[in-house]
């Protein structure tokens, strides 16, 4: 098995590394979303595992155990949130020792209350101790100090769970491994954004996703291995596409786009480039470094002001020299609904044509239908403006 095969296998089976860790007597802390400081979890001696959803699940557990608890206007959520909540209810994550739910978008933070209430109403449901990681969204210093306190509280809770203090040494080490991971992932991003690209978006998403499903040190080793022979990767032809819109924890959308012969050279969501392109910075105390990323530079798009989210999106598209942008916005993803038109305008102002797909299904729906829509759009783009001249050394 090549390093890439191993990385793909972890993405395909998100429980694999965590279960192996458990088998050796370790404990697993699940967390939702990107902005939970996983370095703290690792420094406490736990296995940090980002929760993901299953695009094949039908959401039955959510309908049965959660949606019955509240009036229907309280329970609307985008499909990716339903998919994660479903797995937390249906026993898939029954092996978790602890769970951290951050205050991100409403549909995510609601999972804390939903799980608590569902377990109370249905004691037979799998249960583990939970921690609610609060966060102030506004960007002022007042919020920054509040958010620092929340990171300190999380540290204290992890220490209780571990029965031991988290030492500064352990924290420095975890941050160093995490920063190395981000630096290596930046090289992965550069490979796919190269002219011509040497990595498909589908592979990139699997590689990036695996970083949140494995021990970071193991992931780093695989990345180094993979990058060592990256020069021999075949060059990819076809249009360069930037993918914006809702967070997506599976590869089907990317797959449907790349089935047209295009390459997704970058994306703007928290399961992709956004999860590593703003590394933790020093010099400061490790806690303040983590708190500062939590407050100022989360991969989460729920930040203020909107202009910063939009600028980040446009910057990523420009850095990847995309020929075209596709925004895939899920049904009920209301925050993305209000963000995307400004992002489309910003990207088009830079000369990049875009396709805004609204109210889409989490699982991607019929892949051939999506491929057809994308192919039609890309054909129109190519007709409008011939692609930039192939860079030197491109395939003849």
């Amino acid at each position: 098995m090549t390093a890439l095969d191993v990385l793909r296998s972890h993405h395909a089976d998100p429980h694999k590394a965590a279960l192996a860790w458990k088998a050796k007597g370790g404990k697993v802390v699940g967390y939702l979303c990107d902005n939970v400081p996983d370095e703290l979890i690792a420094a406490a001696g736990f296995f940090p595992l980002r929760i993901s959803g299953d695009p094949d699940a039908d959401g039955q557990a959510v309908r049965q155990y959660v949606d019955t608890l509240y009036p229907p206007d309280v329970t609307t959520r985008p499909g990716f949130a339903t998919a994660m909540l479903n797995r937390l209810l249906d026993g898939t994550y029954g092996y978790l020792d602890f769970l951290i739910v951050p205050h991100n978008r409403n549909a995510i933070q609601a999972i804390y209350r939903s799980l608590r209430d569902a377990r109370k109403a249905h004691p037979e449901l799998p249960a583990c101790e939970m921690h609610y990681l609060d966060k102030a969204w506004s960007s002022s210093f007042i919020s920054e100090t509040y958010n620092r306190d929340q990171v300190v509280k999380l540290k204290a809770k992890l220490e209780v769970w571990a029965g031991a203090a988290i030492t500064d040494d352990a924290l420095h080490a975890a941050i160093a491994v995490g920063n190395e991971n981000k630096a290596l992932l930046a090289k992965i991003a550069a490979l796919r954004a190269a002219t011509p690209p040497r990595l498909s978006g589908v592979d990139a998403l699997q590689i990036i996703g695996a970083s949140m499903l494995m021990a970071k040190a193991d992931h780093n080793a695989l990345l180094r291995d993979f990058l060592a022979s990256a020069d021999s990767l075949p060059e990819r032809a076809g249009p360069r596409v930037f993918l914006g819109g809702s967070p997506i924890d599976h590869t089907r959308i990317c797959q449907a786009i790349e089935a047209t012969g295009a390459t997704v050279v970058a994306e703007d969501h928290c399961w992709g480039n956004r999860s590593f392109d703003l590394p933790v910075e020093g010099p400061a105390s490790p806690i303040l470094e983590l708190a500062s990323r939590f407050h100022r530079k989360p991969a989460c798009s729920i930040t203020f002001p909107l202009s910063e989210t939009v600028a980040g999106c446009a910057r990523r598209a420009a850095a990847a020299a995309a020929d075209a942008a596709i925004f895939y916005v899920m049904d009920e993803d209301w925050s993305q609904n209000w963000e995307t038109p400004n992002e489309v305008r910003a990207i088009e102002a830079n000369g990049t044509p875009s396709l805004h797909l609204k109210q889409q299904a989490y699982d991607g729906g019929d892949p051939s239908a999506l491929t057809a829509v994308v192919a039609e759009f890309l054909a129109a783009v190519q007709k409008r403006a011939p692609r930039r001249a192939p860079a030197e050394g491109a395939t003849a």
Partner: protein
Amino acid sequence: MSFSSAQTRLPSVDAVRTHQRVWLDDTRNRVLAGEHFAICNADDFEEVFTTFGIPSLVINYWNSVVTFSERKGDHYDAVLAEHGYVPNRFAHGFGTALDPSRAPWGGLPKPTLIVGTTRDEAQLRVTELWAEAFGCECYPLDFSWVSQFSHELPERWWEFHRDRSESMLDLARVDLRLEQMKGLIAHLEAITGKAFSLADFRAVMERLNEQMNYWEMARDLVAAARPLPVTLRDQMALYQVTWQRGTPENLALVKAYYDEVKALVAEGAGCYAQEEFRVYMATSGNDPMYHGYLRERHGGAIVSNRYACIAPMYARTIENDDPLRALAARQLFLFDKEPHWEVHEAKRWGADAIFGIEPEGAPPSRYSEVCEAAGFPYLGLPRDADDADIRARIDRFVDTRLNARAPAAQ
């Protein structure tokens, strides 16, 4: 006992509507003359603006004017769609800034700032976009509709509002909110050149409490009277006074309503021709479309709903001479859509049944279980519509659950 036509509006409720219109005209003129104006969410920062003498418009109120009073929802859905958005009702106000030509009452003047709401992330974005459209500042305050429930509510939480509100809250969040409010007050002082007076603010908060006392007294009279003296529609229309809290004008409006209710009860006036049975609506909607059918076909009267019952929850006792903290705490928790509370209200209103909204084909909900366990037959309808399917469901429910009951002991 006398019955008025169900279509007549109470003069005191009409006065509320008139007041709102006059207020908006007056506000527009003041802004044209160079005064400040602000937009904020329903339970956000209004009392502070009132203290500053800055007129402020509540987003939900303006949306309901656009959508319900003026029926321009379809137009503004189209405007939002044209701009690339999937439209929703919360954004209708923002829509009026994108197309002021069709805005109700001549549209809104440009505000000095919009208080950005983090009630949920989508609302935050809408307030930001709205500010962008106006070319004004968006100043967000942190509060999330969902995070309040990270702190478990005590049982019978609806009894805690006035005097024990902090025991329902995460105190770190109250401190955060208080800090942020002070930050915005200082910002407003700098922008307007006015000083914020804590004493004036306390007077606003006390007046608000008095306003809610009258509301509560009126509500208790309406709920206890047989027959029902005030339509659900009028109860809901009165809710507009909660969009301006703690002003002498709104206190006077509620007091006038209370006086009118007292007189109606004294003369035994009823607003519906029949009241064979009483229904409480566990919903956030308006008077439902099928209410006419329910009355005419079955003689059933919908006597109240959730929103007609939450207004008094705005009142807060001021402790330790700290009205700002009282407000901060209130902003973090007003109410929960929770069946035990709705049962409590249904009892207050002497309801014989509770209606709610249930998605088609869903398993039995906690709402239905709690209501039924408390002895209230519960009907979950999939939507607020007056069509053959809804009528059939109502017929079936009334026949099997209400008419089949043993006659109540006299």
